[in-house]
């Protein structure tokens, strides 16, 4: 069996735009789930609303496409009611960190045994390109026509501070690393949060000179910096480019968790 067997073939092609990273991230997640040997009949994918949140609809398991921002609250109910189910959550930066921010920090606090994959494209894709809480200062969007002026969240820092047992960041360019990070997430009891920097050529890209899919891939490749290197630079007091995407594993611990099969 390959990850492709987890797909609902009758629903493809999906609605995502050409070059959208969501498809890649879906692949990597399914590859991880497949590598873990999970049973599709005992696995549930949950999401909120957004382009990213359409992912579960393309997976041939039980899948719960909920309301905007609430994926983690629904998933908490599923997992606590039946801890023997494997539960993975797909979400977007808007879904998770704008309207869903509270469920995000509470799921991390409860350290509930979920794996959360956030397709962070720095924008609201589904509604046509508005700024999100991760849109960098200066970036253009339909609601930041003069450049975003609000500071952006560091989702990884939030997840760590809120209590998640496993936290990592990669980009859609790092397909193998991402697959492995998700797999670590699946294996870690407690909440695992994987932020994936994703390209939205249609909305984010078009406005911010990353229209070409290949430019986006190049961007991810060149701007990414391994956490180890970042830590070293910081420790040495050397400058870190302000637009560096720090990738790698940020935390892996075994604090008390909820929803773990006893």
């Amino acid at each position, binding site marked *: 069996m390959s990850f*492709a067997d987890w797909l609902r073939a009758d629903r493809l*092609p999906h609605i995502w735009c050409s070059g959208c990273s969501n498809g*890649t991230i879906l*692949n990597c997640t399914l590859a991880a789930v497949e590598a873990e040997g999970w049973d599709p009949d005992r696995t549930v994918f949950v999401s909120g609303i957004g382009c990213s949140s359409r992912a579960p609809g393309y997976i041939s398991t039980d899948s719960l496409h909920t309301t905007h921002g609430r994926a983690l609250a629904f998933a908490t109910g599923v997992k606590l009611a039946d801890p023997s189910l494997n539960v993975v959550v797909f979400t977007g930066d808007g879904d998770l960190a704008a309207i869903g921010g509270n469920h995000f920090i509470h799921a991390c606090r409860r350290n509930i045994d979920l794996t959360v994959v956030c397709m962070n494209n720095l924008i609201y894709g589904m509604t046509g390109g508005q700024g999100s809480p991760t849109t960098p200062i200066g970036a253009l969007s339909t609601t930041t026509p003069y450049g975003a002026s609000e500071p952006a969240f560091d989702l990884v820092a939030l997840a760590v501070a809120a209590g998640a047992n496993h936290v990592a960041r990669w980009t859609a360019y790092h397909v193998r690393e991402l697959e492995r990070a998700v797999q670590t997430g699946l294996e870690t009891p407690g909440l695992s949060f994987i932020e994936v920097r994703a390209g939205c050529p249609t909305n984010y890209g078009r406005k911010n000179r990353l229209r070409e899919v*290949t430019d986006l891939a190049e961007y991810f490749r060149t701007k990414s910096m391994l956490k180890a290197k970042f830590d070293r630079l910081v420790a040495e007091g050397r400058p870190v480019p302000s637009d560096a995407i720090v990738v790698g594993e940020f935390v892996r611990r075994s604090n008390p968790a909820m929803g773990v099969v006893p």
Partner: protein
Amino acid sequence: MKLVIDENRCKGCNLCTLVCPYRIFRPGTRANRKGVLVPELDRPERCTNCRLQGLYGRTLCGVCQLTCPDQAIGWVRERPYEPAKIEVEY
């Protein structure tokens, strides 16, 4: 195994052209009926996976498949294996 791109799924993003170490994918030039420029395959029999999947019984490399955002890349079984024949699927 034979590398194929599902024309019904491919949206022509050209990410595959970027990631294959063998540069097997080349940007397409002719729009298909959906208006998509599906990449063309340059001697796909060079692909690690095409060559060795049968041998190892699992997907090797597979970076293009994992990367393809449209789940358009796959392999179909060829029987018998015909190393000389060049198939361009788009």
